[in-house]
C-alpha cells in the first residue's frame, strides 16, 4: 500500500459492495419493489422522439391486472387465437425444459438451462415480431424457437449432441442455431450477440431491407463492454434493432445490484444513449407483446432502436451446475410479486371466457405427450456419450467446418485421429 500521508481533516473512505435484501435463512423480501398498477403507464406514440419515453424507464409497463383483465393504453388487444397460441407456446417451453432438465439428471447429456418463469420474454416477444425478423438470443430464449415452430425433436437432438443434432455435437446443450428460424447461433461468451445484432440491423438498413433484428442480453451481462458497443452503434446509426435486457435479477450467484441495479434501472441506460427505452413487466405476456410491437413499429419507421428492460425472475437455478439455495432464500421464487407468466395469461383467457379448465387440462396432456413422443424420437438417434468412443457422429466431422476448405494440416490431423481411434478399438 502506498504510505498514506496524514490527512487529519479527511474522513476514511470505505468500499461499498452491494448485498441483496435477503440471503439463505432470511425470508425473501420484495417489499422494496415499486410496482405500479396495471394500465397506469402512459403509452407514447411509437413515432415520438426518444426522450418522450425517458420517464418510462423508471416505471413498469403492465397490462394484466390482478383479476386477469387487460387494462390501459398498452393492451395489444390480441385476438383469442393469438392469445391461446402464446399460452400454448409458453406451456410447451416449460414442459420441454422440465423434460430436458430431467434427461440431464439421468445422465443423457452434460448440461441444461431452464427458462422457467421467463417464458413470456421469449415467446410473447417473438409473436410480436414478423416471422422473418432476425433474433440474436442468449441461452435462455429457447422460447423463440418454439414460437417459430422449430421441430422439437431437432431441439432435443441438439441437447443430446446425437446423430440428429444439426450442429453435429459441436456445442453445449441449448446452444441452438437456425438460420431458417431467424435464430443466431448461441455463444457461450456472454454479450457478444448484442452488438452483432446491431450489425445485422445496420446491414438490413444498408441494403434497403425491411427486416429488423431483436437482441437479448441478461441483466448481469450488461456489464460487458459489448453491451455498450451495441448501444452506441445502435444509437449512432439508428439501427433497426430491439435491444432486450432480460432482468431476471440474478447472474448465477450475483444479484442484479452487482450489475448496477441498486442505483437505477437497466432501462435507464437508454437515456444516456439518447435512444427510446421501456421498462416492462416481463411476466405479463401482453405487456411484453405490446412493448415489442411498439419498438418494432418504431424501428420499422426508421426511428432507431429501443432498449427494453423485461423485468422478471429466474425461478430455477442458473443451470444444472448450480444450486441457488446456497445464495438466495429458498422461498424467493414463490414470493416474486409479478407472478407466473403462464398462470397470468391463462387467467386472462379464462376471464375473457375464451378458455376453460378442461381445455387447459387437455392442452397440458397433449403437450406432455408431444414432448414425450419427441423425446423418444430424439433418443433413437442417441444421447451424449461420455465414457466410450462409440461416438454419435462420424469422428471425421470434427475437422469439417473449421474453414470452407480443409487445409493440409487439418487433413493430416484428421487422418491421425482416425488412426488413433482404430488403435483404441484394438
Amino acid at each position, binding site marked *: *500500500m*502506498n504510505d498514506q500521508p496524514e490527512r487529519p481533516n479527511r474522513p476514511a473512505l*470505505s*468500499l461499498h*459492495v452491494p*448485498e441483496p435484501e435477503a*440471503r439463505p435463512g432470511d425470508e425473501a423480501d420484495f417489499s422494496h419493489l415499486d410496482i405500479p398498477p396495471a394500465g397506469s403507464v402512459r403509452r407514447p406514440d411509437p413515432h415520438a422522439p426518444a426522450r418522450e419515453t425517458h420517464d418510462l424507464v423508471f416505471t413498469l409497463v403492465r397490462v394484466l391486472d390482478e383479476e386477469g383483465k387487460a387494462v390501459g393504453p398498452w393492451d395489444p388487444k390480441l385476438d383469442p387465437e393469438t392469445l391461446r397460441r402464446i399460452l400454448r407456446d409458453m406451456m410447451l417451453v416449460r414442459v420441454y425444459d422440465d423434460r430436458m432438465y430431467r434427461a440431464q439428471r439421468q445422465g443423457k447429456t*452434460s*448440461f441444461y438451462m431452464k427458462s422457467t418463469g421467463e417464458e413470456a420474454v421469449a415467446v410473447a416477444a417473438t409473436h410480436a415480431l414478423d416471422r422473418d425478423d432476425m433474433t440474436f438470443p442468449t441461452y435462455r430464449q429457447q422460447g423463440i424457437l418454439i414460437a417459430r415452430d422449430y421441430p422439437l425433436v431437432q431441439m432435443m437432438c441438439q441437447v443430446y*449432441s*446425437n446423430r440428429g443434432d444439426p450442429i*453435429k*455435437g*459441436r*456445442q*453445449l446443450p441449448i*446452444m441452438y442455431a437456425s438460420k431458417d428460424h431467424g435464430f443466431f447461433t448461441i*455463444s*457461450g*461468451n*456472454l*454479450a457478444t450477440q448484442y452488438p452483432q445484432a446491431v450489425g445485422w440491423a445496420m446491414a438490413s438498413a444498408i441494403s434497403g431491407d425491411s427486416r429488423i433484428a431483436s437482441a437479448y442480453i441478461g441483466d*448481469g*451481462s450488461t*456489464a*460487458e*463492454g*459489448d453491451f455498450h458497443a451495441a448501444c452506441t452503434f445502435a444509437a449512432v446509426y439508428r439501427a433497426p434493432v430491439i435491444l432486450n435486457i432480460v432482468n431476471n435479477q440474478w*447472474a*448465477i*450467484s*450475483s444479484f442484479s445490484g*452487482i*450489475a*448496477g441495479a441498486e442505483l437505477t434501472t437497466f432501462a435507464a441506460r437508454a437515456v444516456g444513449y439518447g435512444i427510446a427505452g421501456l421498462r416492462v413487466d416481463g411476466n405479463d405476456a401482453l405487456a411484453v407483446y405490446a412493448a415489442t410491437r411498439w419498438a418494432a413499429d418504431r424501428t420499422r419507421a426508421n426511428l432507431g432502436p429501443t432498449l427494453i428492460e423485461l423485468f422478471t425472475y429466474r425461478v430455477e437455478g442458473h443451470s444444472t*451446475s448450480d444450486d441457488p439455495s*446456497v*445464495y438466495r432464500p429458498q422461498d424467493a421464487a414463490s414470493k416474486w410479486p409479478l407472478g407466473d407468466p403462464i398462470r397470468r395469461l391463462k387467467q386472462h383467457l379464462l376471464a375473457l371466457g375464451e378458455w376453460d379448465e378442461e381445455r387447459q387440462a387437455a392442452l397440458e396432456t397433449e403437450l406432455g405427450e408431444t414432448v414425450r413422443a419427441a423425446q423418444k424420437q430424439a433418443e433413437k438417434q442417441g444421447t*451424449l*456419450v*461420455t*465414457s*466410450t*468412443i462409440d*461416438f*454419435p*457422429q462420424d*469422428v471425421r*466431422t*470434427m*475437422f469439417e467446418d*473449421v474453414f470452407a476448405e480443409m487445409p493440409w*494440416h*487439418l487433413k493430416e*490431423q484428421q487422418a*491421425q*485421429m482416425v488412426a*488413433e*481411434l482404430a*488403435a483404441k478399438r484394438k
Partner: protein
Amino acid sequence: MTVMNMIQALNSAHDVMMERDKRVVALGEDVGYFGGVFRVTEGLQRKYGASRAFDTPISENGIVAAAIGMAAYGLRPVAEIQFADYIYPAFDQLVSEAARVRYRTASEWSLPLTIRSPYGGGIFGGQTHSQSPEALFAHVAGLKTVIPSNPYDAKGLLIAAIEDDDPVLFFEPKRIYNGPFDGFFDRPVTPWAKHPQAEVPDGHYTVPIGKAAVVREGGDLTILAYGTMVHVVLATVAAEGVDAEVIDLRTILPVDIETIEASVRKTGRCVVVHEATRTGGFGAELSALVQERCFYHLEAPVQRATGFDTPYPHSLEWAYFPGPVRIGTAIRKALED
C-alpha cells in the same frame, strides 16, 4: 500438513496471504458470497469482509483493469476469470497494459497482480469451458504464466504469484481440481488423497516461479508437460513401459530452460505435450528451444502431442483430447526414429 484437493489448496493460499498481508484482495464473478463457481474463494468474504473478497460485474476487462488500478495503488489483487475461455474481453488490458506498465515507466510502477483462471478440457464443457489459451499469453512480452499440476504446487505457486511484483497469469487445470485425471476416461479417477502431492502444509510456503519439476526420472526420452497432461503423460509412460524422464514445467514463462536442457542432453529424445491447439502452441516454442540448444544431442526429431487445430468439440471430446494413444504414438515415434 493437511490432505487437500487442488481447490482446497488454492483456497488455503488465498487464506494464508489474506491473513498475512492486508494488501491482498480477491475479486471476480461470483467470488464473494458464493465463493466462486469452483469454490476456490469459499469463506474468504466471511473471514475477511466484503471489501477484501467480493463479486464483480460480469466484465472481464473491467476485472483486469480494476485489478491493474488496485495494483497501481499498491494492493495485491487476485482476480478470478471464471473460465479461461472468457478471458478474451480482458485481452487488451492484459496485453497492452498489465504487461507493459513496468516497462513504459522504467519500473516507477509495477503491477503485483495475479489473474487466476480455470482452463482446459475433459469436462464436456464444449467450446467455451474447455480451452487452453496459455500460448496467447506466453507470446506477450511482460506476462508470467504459471500452471500447477497438483495441490502442493498449486498452493506454493499461487503464494509465489501473489508475492511476485509482476503480473502473473495463473491457469488452473480444472479437470484435476478434484483428482489427478490421467486421460483414461473410462477408468475412475483416484482421489487426490492417494497422491503424495496432496499433503499440503497449512501455513505459508512457496514453490518458485520459473522452476520445473522432474516428476519421473528416466533415460529413454524427455517428456515436457504441464497441468492435467502431467498425469496423462505419467499414466501413458507406465502403460507404454518406457523409461521416460517426465518434466512438469509448472511455469510456462519464464520457462526453466536449464532443467529442460539437462534432461534432453541426457536422453537425446524429446516429446512435448499440451492440451491446447497445436499450431502456434507453446509446444512449438519448446520444440524450437530444444532444437536450438540441444541439436547435437538429439537422436530424433522433437515430437508434439497436442489438441487438434479445431474449436473444442462437445460430443467428440475423447477423440479430441490428447490422451494416452496420441501421446503413446508420439513417444514411439521419438524412440523409433
